[in-house]
């Protein structure tokens, strides 16, 4: 195929997309809509994951109780060992004094019964934040095996429950993203099929007067890519606008809750990437494939 033909083909694809305004518009709307669904869910799932992890992070504390017979250097070396664990994000030491205070608090106003007791019978402990909810159990097991550790407890009973939510959220998110991806591809490619169908006669005619399959197909592919591309641009603009608006409102505290969204700039590439890949690829390839059956004349 010569360069002048390539030039013609690209020009023809653009002209056709423009002359079939009505049809292009309907398909662009469909492409935009289905990309938006995918994109919205992508953003939501990223945010839900972020939020859940955030909540969990706050709760994912375990407490390692030292043997009360340990001396200070032993306790310090234990702290060092704990900090070495790759899943530990923060370690706070609870001194014997603090432990006593806590006890008093737990006993509420009856705390006074502890007055006069020496705090030395209470063990020192470490309140430890864990990076990743998934690993909490193994971390607990590891710490239990450390020498000088008397016991390891969760600060909250619901950690297991919560980490199951986190796990399921992730699984379901991925599943839904796959489904939505397929659905978008399905919808876009069938839309392209309809636009090609509307012009089956045109394709036939070109074939009848001797155009090669490639020559007929390429402008349609260009047209499909244009439709996909415009759909991607529009859906990206909409997504970006709404996301930043909502994010702005939330961070201004209008909803009255301390609810942080992920900054769009940190995920913008995923969104742009998926939109343009889906839009243009499916538009172009869908066009090329749909046209095939009308070429057999």
């Amino acid at each position, binding site marked *: *195929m010569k360069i002048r033909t390539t030039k013609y083909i690209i020009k023809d694809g653009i002209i*056709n997309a423009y*002359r079939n305004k009505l049809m292009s518009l309907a398909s662009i709307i469909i492409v935009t809509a289905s990309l938006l669904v995918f994109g919205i869910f992508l953003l939501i799932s990223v945010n839900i994951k972020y939020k859940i992890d955030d909540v969990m992070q706050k709760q994912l504390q375990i407490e390692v109780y030292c043997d009360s017979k340990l001396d200070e250097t032993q306790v310090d070396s234990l702290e060092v060992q704990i900090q070495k664990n790759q899943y530990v994000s923060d370690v706070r030491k609870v001194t014997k004094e603090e432990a006593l205070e806590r006890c008093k608090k737990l006993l509420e106003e009856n705390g006074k019964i502890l007055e006069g007791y020496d705090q030395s019978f209470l063990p020192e402990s470490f309140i430890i934040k864990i990076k990743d909810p998934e690993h909490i159990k193994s971390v607990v097991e590891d710490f239990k095996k450390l020498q000088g550790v008397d016991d390891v407890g969760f600060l909250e009973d619901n950690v297991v429950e919560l980490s199951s939510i986190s796990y399921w959220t992730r699984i379901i998110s991925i599943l839904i993203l796959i489904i939505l991806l397929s659905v978008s591809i399905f919808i876009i490619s069938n839309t392209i099929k309809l636009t090609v169908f509307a012009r089956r006669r*045109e394709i036939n005619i070109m074939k*009848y*007067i*001797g155009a090669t*399959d490639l020559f007929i197909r390429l402008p349609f592919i260009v047209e499909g890519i244009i439709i996909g591309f415009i759909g991607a641009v529009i859906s990206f603009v909409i997504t970006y606008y709404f996301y930043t608006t909502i994010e702005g409102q939330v961070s201004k505290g209008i909803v009255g809750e301390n609810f942080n969204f992920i900054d769009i700039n940190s995920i913008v590439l995923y969104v742009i990437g998926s939109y343009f890949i889906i839009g243009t690829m499916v538009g172009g390839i869908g066009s090329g494939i749909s046209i095939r059956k009308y070429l*057999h*004349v």
Partner: protein
Amino acid sequence: MVKFENVTKLYENGTLALSGVNLKINKGDFAFFIGPSGSGKSTLIKLILREEETTEGDVIVNGFNVSTMRRKDIPHLRRSIGVVFQDFRLLPGKTVYENVAFAMQIVEAMPKEIRRRVPMILGLVGLSKKASAYPNQLSGGEQQRVALARALVNNPALLVADEPTGNLDPETSWGIIKLLNDINQMGTTIIVATHEKSIVDAMKKRVIALSKGEIIRDQEKGLYENEDKNHEIHN
């Protein structure tokens, strides 16, 4: 140039459109296909273009055996033939100019050549003023002439025209037929399916008459109606 060997065409719905057709049209010939409505003229043309496939028999066109050729060679066959379809088949989304230019673009002609040749051909069929109109903005006869212009633009070795004057007044028709005759003089083989008795009679060219899918007459310098029984079959 075009050869039918014992060709039968049975359409899918059971219509027998052609049966046992033998026919040979040589390079430089000018032949009319005539016959009543539904006698198989367009089917003959569709077989030449491989728009339809034969049920039996072979069709050889420009050296291609149309019945057995590979799918990817079809465009080459069609490009070697200029065709005026009975239903015109103009591209609705393209202007008159673009429709004619398209036939040159598919053979990858030079843009300069396209810009030179298309207006010339449009002038020849009397449509210079309509270059930027779309097909649905044309009268029936104008559309027919665009179809003719498109068929002519690549200077094909074989020109096949199905009813090329059906929507034209006698004067314009004559202009077109003279044009075809001139082209024929320059060596192009021409096949015209037509109902116009007056044209066939005046031209005195080869006449191939069909009836119910069979050739009932094939006569050099023939008339629309058969006045000379001696010429009944010639091959």
